[in-house]
């Protein structure tokens, strides 16, 4: 079925014009992957909450051992990186191709900074004798943040790839689906952390 609209004020008045594309950003079907990942994380979050409900005192005591300042800093870093990546997508849409690699590699730098701070945080915890085997909270903490860091490393690698390609001007306003897909995945990584941060560090 063709998608057409009749524009009242343009000439000729009865001539149908193609409507704007209603496609989702990214390559065809990619949102199924995003949706599936969200469902898996939702199950993980629900399972964590259920475990927390079973032993709130232990979870609260363990939560207090975490460094929420470093995690808060990482939240700002990830939000900044998402903003950078969104700017890169806007630049591609406007065919401002010189700006695209700068924004994308800004996102890559932020991703690497997140990994650096997270490694410092893990180092402090391990030095304090907190490991995944310590208790139920630490098992969940290392599992959830570990899976998130794995996502982040994949996302950073993909950003570095599209950043390199964008230097070669591989993407432009009519050919941007791959860049959009990677950007969408990066925003997912960001959103997951936005949920994880209060869930692990702030929830009393």
């Amino acid at each position, binding site marked *: 079925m063709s998608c057409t609209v009749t524009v009242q004020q343009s000439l000729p008045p009865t001539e149908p014009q193609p409507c704007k594309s209603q496609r989702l950003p990214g*390559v*065809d*079907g*990619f*949102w*199924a*992957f995003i949706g*599936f*990942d969200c469902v*898996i994380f939702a*199950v*993980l979050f629900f*399972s964590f909450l259920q*475990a927390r409900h079973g032993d709130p005192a232990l979870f609260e005591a363990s939560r207090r051992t975490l460094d929420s300042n470093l995690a808060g800093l990482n939240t700002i870093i990830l939000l900044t990186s998402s903003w950078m990546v969104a700017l890169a997508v806007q630049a591609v849409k406007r065919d401002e191709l010189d700006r695209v690699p700068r924004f994308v590699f800004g996102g890559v730098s932020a991703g690497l900074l997140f990994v650096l701070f997270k490694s410092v945080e893990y180092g402090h915890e391990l030095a304090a004798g907190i490991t*995944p*085997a310590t208790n*139920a909270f630490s*098992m969940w903490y290392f*599992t959830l943040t570990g*899976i998130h860091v794995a996502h982040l490393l994949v996302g950073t690698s993909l950003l570095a790839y599209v950043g390199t390609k964008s230097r070669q001007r591989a993407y432009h306003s009519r050919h941007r689906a791959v860049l959009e897909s990677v950007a969408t995945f990066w925003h997912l990584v960001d959103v997951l952390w936005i949920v994880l941060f209060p869930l692990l560090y702030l929830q009393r």
Partner: protein
Amino acid sequence: MEDGGRLETQKVALWCNYVFVALTAIGWLGIAHFILPARADLGLDATKVWYTQSHRMGVLVGCTIFYIAAGLLTPGSIQFGIMLAKIEGRRPVMAITTAVCGVFISLIVFFNCCAWVVAAYRPQTGADVIQSWNDWAWMAFLLGWIYLTIEMLATGIVELMDRRPRPMVPRWMTWFTFGGAIALFTAAGPAFTKSGPFAYHGLLAYYIPVAIWGAYISLTTWFMMKELGREGSESTPGVLHRDRPAVAAADRAPAL
């Protein structure tokens, strides 16, 4: 006539996947009661009671059905590989990977069934021996996630190579396959814990991976079956397929 015959054989091989899923649900999840298995933290004596009293006959019958089903996964997996090889063309590394991993999984399931049957076989066997067989079977079953992940990734990669206007498997299913392949990682948990969602009776280690496995086999078989139907009608004189340019003859010939 020869082509029609080959199509029928391929359809039968794909149907084996449906039969595998159905027999697994009936035999293993239902009759053997693995829908609610003996928990990893159940304890020695309770595990022995589970296998030798509460569900002994169910395990013997259900696991017998399950290993028969596992045998049927072999032709089904090979047919997955053949369907994918039609897309991948010559030297179909990924398609062969899919087929071989499917056969591996078939064997893994067979040996799991043997172990569960052994656990229920002699009521006089010691509780520690029964628990060890049970643990071994679960570890072999769930830690086999790596073969399923590789199979699903290989399948998804080939599906992305299908550039036709109407691909064999729709893109949303391909990306679901990738998502499922990655999510199977949670089945690595049972080696490290005996309770909670990552234990071998848990939501993340057991139920979600098994659901992903079932959905992947059922849905991929469904789309491949439709593709075979289209192949059949394309070879029928007088039927037009404007949206499906024929795959090049060289690409059609699977090199498996």
